[in-house]
């Protein structure tokens, strides 16, 4: 059953120290505002799950909140390294980071298995690779019908899933459009779920009969945070801030620059600040 809360209240109520958290969104709709609120509230010893850690987890790792990372591709898309993630793994700064590393197919299957209430995912993957040698969570089983060797990994069942979406209606149903990634699976795999939205509307109005909608009773809390995915994007609202993704490389490279950026833009900021951050409205981008 959902409730409408401020982002501060939602994080305070549903995110605890030591939790496993999936802040999902495949490049699109990454819940940056919610991640920043977790940083501000000083949650620590977290296990973070995300297919692509992206800038958001680079920030949370660099701030020392994260004990363990479950992931499948840890770069800055199209730009290069995530320097905070790299330094945590290469040098243990600001603390050592445990990793549970997969492929995209593995993570996607594991979320789906979690949403399906299964203990593990079965698929065809990692064949002949070294990942299966270094990650004890990757195992192989024989198909009981054909004997084919199949891959088996534990399902992902986070304590909390957090996603950003375009709209919630007054009842608290959530509408997601565009690149939908693994958001639905992450929410349905989790014990609790927080959704930040661009706007709350009276009702969704005309839509496809197959629209991706999470019913209100699958979501613990909804917080309206316009711009809350920036520098990721919200399809139909604002475009991905590719210039910021490029700029992040220099910000994150150096400890002092990183820390002062985090102080100014996260620790000393508020969720409401996100509304002014997306640089271009989608209408301008379309020109």
């Amino acid at each position: 059953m959902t409730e409408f809360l401020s982002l501060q209240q939602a994080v305070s109520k549903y995110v605890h120290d030591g939790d496993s958290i999936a802040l999902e969104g495949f490049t699109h709709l990454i819940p940056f505002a919610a991640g920043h609120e977790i940083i501000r509230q000083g949650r620590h010893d977290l296990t973070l799950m995300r297919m692509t850690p992206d800038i958001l987890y680079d920030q949370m790792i660099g701030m020392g909140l994260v004990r363990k990372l479950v992931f499948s591709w840890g770069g800055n898309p199209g730009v290069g390294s995530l320097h905070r993630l790299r330094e945590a793994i290469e040098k243990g700064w600001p603390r050592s980071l445990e990793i549970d590393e997969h492929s995209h197919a593995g993570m996607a299957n594991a979320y789906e298995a979690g949403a399906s209430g299964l203990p593990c995912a079965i698929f065809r993957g990692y064949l002949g690779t070294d990942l299966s040698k270094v990650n004890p969570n990757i195992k192989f089983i024989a198909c009981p019908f054909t004997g084919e060797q199949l891959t088996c990994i534990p399902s992902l069942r986070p304590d909390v899933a957090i996603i950003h979406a375009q709209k919630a209606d007054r009842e608290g149903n959530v509408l997601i459009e565009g690149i939908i990634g693994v958001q639905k699976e992450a929410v349905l795999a989790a014990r609790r779920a927080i959704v930040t939205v661009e706007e709350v509307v009276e009702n969704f109005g005309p839509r496809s009969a197959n629209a991706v909608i999470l019913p209100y009773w699958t979501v613990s809390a909804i917080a309206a945070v316009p711009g809350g995915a920036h520098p990721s994007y919200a399809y139909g609202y604002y475009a991905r801030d590719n210039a910021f993704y490029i700029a992040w490389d220099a910000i994150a490279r150096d400890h002092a620059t990183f820390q002062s950026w985090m102080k100014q833009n996260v620790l000393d900021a508020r969720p409401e600040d996100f509304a002014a951050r997306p640089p271009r409205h989608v209408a301008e981008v379309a020109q």
Partner: protein
Amino acid sequence: MNYSASEMMTVAAARVLTNEDVCFVGIGLPSAACNLARLTHAPRITLIYESGTLATRPDVLPLSIGDGELCATALTTVAVPEIFRYWLQGGRITVGFLGGAQIDRFGNLNTTVIGKYTNPKVRLPGAGGAPEIASSCGQVYIVMRHGLRSFVKELDFLTSLGHGRTGTERHSLGIKTKGPALLVTDLCIMAPDSSTHEFVVVSLHPGVTRDQVSANTGWDLKFAETVTETPAPDSGELEILRDLNARTERAHGRVSVEA
């Protein structure tokens, strides 16, 4: 018309794609080659990105695998578990297009670490979609810049299976797909030997010598019996590629495909 080695590589990679291909596209060089093919000789090619965008026709090259441009120009966009389960694992993709930080003579790829996994010298981004693209697509094309740091005798880590560490592993693991069938670099085009599966040079780009390719390859490089010369990019190919790069640069605020 003058052209760069990088343009030669992208054009040569684009040429091997056809209208009938259903192509799983990685970001960077593969994305440039696939979209160049679509804008030149293969307008009906189906491009699929792992973000779930099916049959997409971006006007500019995406910076990330999930830019809004990919979704806005796609036939439809499906969830990420569906793209990996139904479309990739289900055997619907004819060609996977990959790159990597390191490659060996059998087309195995490393995108995970330089050095030891537990204590890496350089931590690279990791697997992403590549391991299953490498095993589930009908065949795999690889595009990579030649160099001693990337064309290595021994991979530090095998992220995605090519023909295996001895060239025989696909068969012994029961994998039915063809694996790496072509390797396009900024110096040459290589293809696996039909019996050993070791990549050999089949075509040299104009002006490139055998010694030059050997000197940039970390293993004892072999050449096919007949080595041809890659036709130089024509003015039409170059114009379309340069327009695409210029549009992309304007959209992102800098050149991204050279990264």
